[in-house]
């Protein structure tokens, strides 16, 4: 980078807000998806909105692409730096600015950790509902970018349901407010578009969240089935009975083994484990839990048990939330996938995954948000064995294709990012992607904000003839002009 620009950036954030030594930059070369790595030119750590605006303003003037980063826990490479670009880390903007209990709203900076929002409002019996497995480390800004879900979004909805307002620095450095403290502010729902746009439309610098009153009681049931098909049938019956549990999670035997090895949640050793959580008023939950118990037994569960205490319940969840990391106990390397299928396609897709796994000689463990059909197949491999990594990658993409063939999606909560952008053209037709990119052009005509992510082919926004200047992406051969 030009020394003059470098100086200018440093003057915005101060010497402590700039990372530029190669050793330190390594921390930022990837996010939770570690098989993609790019070294950024520099990392900037602004401490307020004005600094973010000033940094983005310089990037806009100098045509430097930038990538916003929260805690870097994303699993699709959304916070992967781009070539010749900088990273803007929001980690230092981590203040909870306002807590308005009477209106059930909290205003936070993007670097605030997800679980800290609940931590702040818990004494008043409130909680922040979206609960990705990484909630003890992931940031609200990252959650907004990815529209993060979690086990409880079956009942409570995703991040987008819980974001009411945003302060956003647009890719030209200007500041806008989308949504607000009240619902339905006049105008387009640009907030709805921004949430889940994976950092491609700008940087959120302030987020107004909705918090939820803690239900009177929470009950968690574990049911052990011979296999995932029986467990899946129980899920369908629970839904058909007109219930909307707070969460329904499923794990197969390999996933149970891994969780046991890692955190000893005392799961029954079975082919398909179901975890059903109901919450609400005591009388209601108890009446419905009896129905759930009966449905599980009717579908072949040989053990059904209710967590007896909060401690036991937390342990059950600890096992589930540790499932990804637990794979390290049973395999040196693994790929986490995030496909979604209509719930009814579960038996068909599961047996096809088993067949493909056997054919490729690669083990696949399965953890799902079974209530909403969100599969997390964990493709296990050993990088040291020649050809295994490639075989595992191609198996994981094949599983996503299966999801699409079943009428589903390539991602339920992890985002497209760098990892799945090529799959986008299998899920969407050209006019669909083109329309999304037209929206992008309204926010970021120069395509500086996390370019090269989400879309298989970045499209440059039509500029008037005569004003043509080759874009860095164009000269690098990664984009074409239409």
């Amino acid at each position, binding site marked *: 980078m030009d020394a003059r620009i470098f100086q200018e950036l440093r003057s915005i954030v101060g010497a402590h807000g700039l990372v530029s030594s190669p050793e330190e930059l390594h921390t930022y070369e990837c996010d939770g998806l570690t098989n993609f790595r790019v070294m950024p030119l520099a990392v900037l750590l602004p401490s307020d909105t004005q600094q973010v605006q000033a940094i983005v303003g310089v990037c806009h003037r100098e045509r430097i692409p930038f990538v916003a980063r929260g805690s870097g826990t994303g699993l699709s490479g959304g916070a992967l730096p781009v070539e010749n670009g900088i990273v803007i880390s929001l980690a230092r903007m981590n203040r909870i600015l306002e807590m308005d209990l009477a209106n059930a709203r909290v205003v936070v900076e993007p670097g605030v950790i997800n679980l800290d929002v609940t931590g702040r409002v818990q004494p008043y019996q409130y909680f922040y509902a979206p609960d990705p497995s990484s909630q003890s480390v992931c940031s609200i800004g990252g959650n907004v970018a990815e529209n993060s879900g979690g086990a409880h979004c079956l009942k409570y909805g995703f991040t987008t349901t819980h974001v009411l307002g945003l302060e956003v620095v647009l890719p030209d450095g200007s500041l806008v407010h989308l949504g607000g403290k009240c619902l339905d502010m006049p105008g387009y729902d640009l907030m709805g578009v921004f949430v889940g746009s994976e950092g491609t439309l700008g940087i959120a610098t302030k987020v107004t969240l909705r918090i939820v009153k803690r239900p009177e009681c929470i009950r968690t049931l574990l049911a052990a089935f011979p296999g995932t098909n029986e467990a899946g049938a129980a899920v369908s019956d629970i839904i058909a009975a007109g219930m909307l549990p707070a969460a329904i999670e499923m794990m197969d035997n390999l996933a149970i083994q891994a969780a046991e090895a890692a955190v000893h949640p005392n799961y029954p050793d079975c082919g398909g484990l179901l975890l059903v959580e109901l919450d609400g008023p005591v009388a*209601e939950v108890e009446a419905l839990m009896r129905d759930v118990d009966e449905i599980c037994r009717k579908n072949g569960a040989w053990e059904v048990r209710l967590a007896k205490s909060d401690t036991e319940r937390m342990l059950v969840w600890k096992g589930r939330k540790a499932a990804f990391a637990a794979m390290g106990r049973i395999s040196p390397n693994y790929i986490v996938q995030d496909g979604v299928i209509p719930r009814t396609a579960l038996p068909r897709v599961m047996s096809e995954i088993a067949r493909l796994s056997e054919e490729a000689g690669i083990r696949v463990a399965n953890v799902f948000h079974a209530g909403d059909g969100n599969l997390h197949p964990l493709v296990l491999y050993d990088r040291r064995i020649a050809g295994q990594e490639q075989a595992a990658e191609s198996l994981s993409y094949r599983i996503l294709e299966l999801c699409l063939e079943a009428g589903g999606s390539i991602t*339920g909560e992890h985002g497209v990012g760098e990892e799945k952008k090529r799959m986008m053209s299998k899920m969407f037709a050209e006019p669909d992607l083109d329309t999304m990119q037209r*929206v992008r052009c309204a926010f970021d005509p120069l395509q500086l904000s996390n370019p090269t992510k989400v879309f298989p082919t970045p499209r440059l926004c039509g500029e008037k003839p005569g004003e043509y200047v080759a874009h860095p992406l164009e000269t690098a051969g990664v984009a074409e002009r239409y």
Partner: protein
Amino acid sequence: MLKTSAFEENLRARVGEANLHLASAGDAVSGVLPEFVAEPNDERQLAGILSLANEAGIAVVPRGSGTKLDWGNPPRRAQLILSTARLNRIVEHVWADLTVTVEAGCTLQSLQQTLGQHGQRLAFDGLWPERATIGGILSTNDSGALRLRFGALRDLIIGVTIALPDGTLASSGGKVVKNVAGYDLPKLVTGALGTLGIITRAVFRLHPLPRTAKTFSFSAENSADMQQLILAIQDSQLAHTSLQIRGAASELLAADILFEATDAGLAAQESQLRDLLGSARVEQSPGSIWDARQNLWNPPANSTLLGKISLLPTHIAKTFDFLKSLGNSRKVSWQIVLQATGIGMLWLEGDPDQLSAVVKQSRTELESRSGALVILHRPSELRAIDAWGNAGDSISLMRAVKHQLDPKSILNPGRFVGGI
């Protein structure tokens, strides 16, 4: 008009005699009379007509059944009404997956009837369900009492197909409840008043019909007491589905609360509610009490103005008191049906000049507390007042989005926020 007649010829060729007719007085849009009404048979034909209009620079007003056709500002121009009346199929109800794909022209009631056969519903209560279409409800972002529990349509829509002025049919979202692939365009077009594209079909997540439902009502002496009761319910662990407040200049404030649960759960919640409300009298009410919002529209006289208000739940009392004193001084009568979400329907009746002043002052008041007042229906003398109010600092971004999708501004020109 030469341009129009060439366009008419093309249009006739595209849509066929039977599906095209000249507009009559009943087709007027806030006093502006269009020339034609086209009723395409399917979404491809609709997209084709739209692209013809775009090429000819013809202004298009999308229309479902027209129940909310005068919402928003009067159009700057309106030549063609593009009706979704024939796009009324329920494409696919996958009851086991709790999803439905439906064309834009299907009425809410007809959709609910089909879903009900499998014990399901779109957990949404819009105005005039027997006539209002899915496309129209989405475009106007109408929402009712069920929003407190289930969210608005923006929270229930999981996929959409829109026709753009250049003839593109674009889909986004999908058919599964959980999906973060690509931009959330279903939310972008919800509430866009048909200014970005015409919704041709939508996919929704569904909910089971409740096992039992019971409504209770209670009242309060004054607005401060009512606000306290509402906040106490919202801060409790009751699992109510809806909570609305009914207020008028001359009456006590009343509120209604809906529980949907098992019999056992319902009994427990009823007793908790009675404990919580203390001395306030609690009575069971018929389900028809939830029509209160719609009843404000029966029938709008020419001295009636209706609007949608947004406020914070802690500003309920202030807002009621403000209206009471303003209504008195301006001799304007008023009624409100307000949901605990902070979204309410405001009804005003009086002399047009006074109505205009009340709207202006109420809007200033609400906006100063980060809320809003949007006019939905007004006497014809008041057509010049802006329906929307302050659009905030993202208005240029909104214009940029509009320009990307409808560069010639042929869709409902002038009807949306900031003259969009």
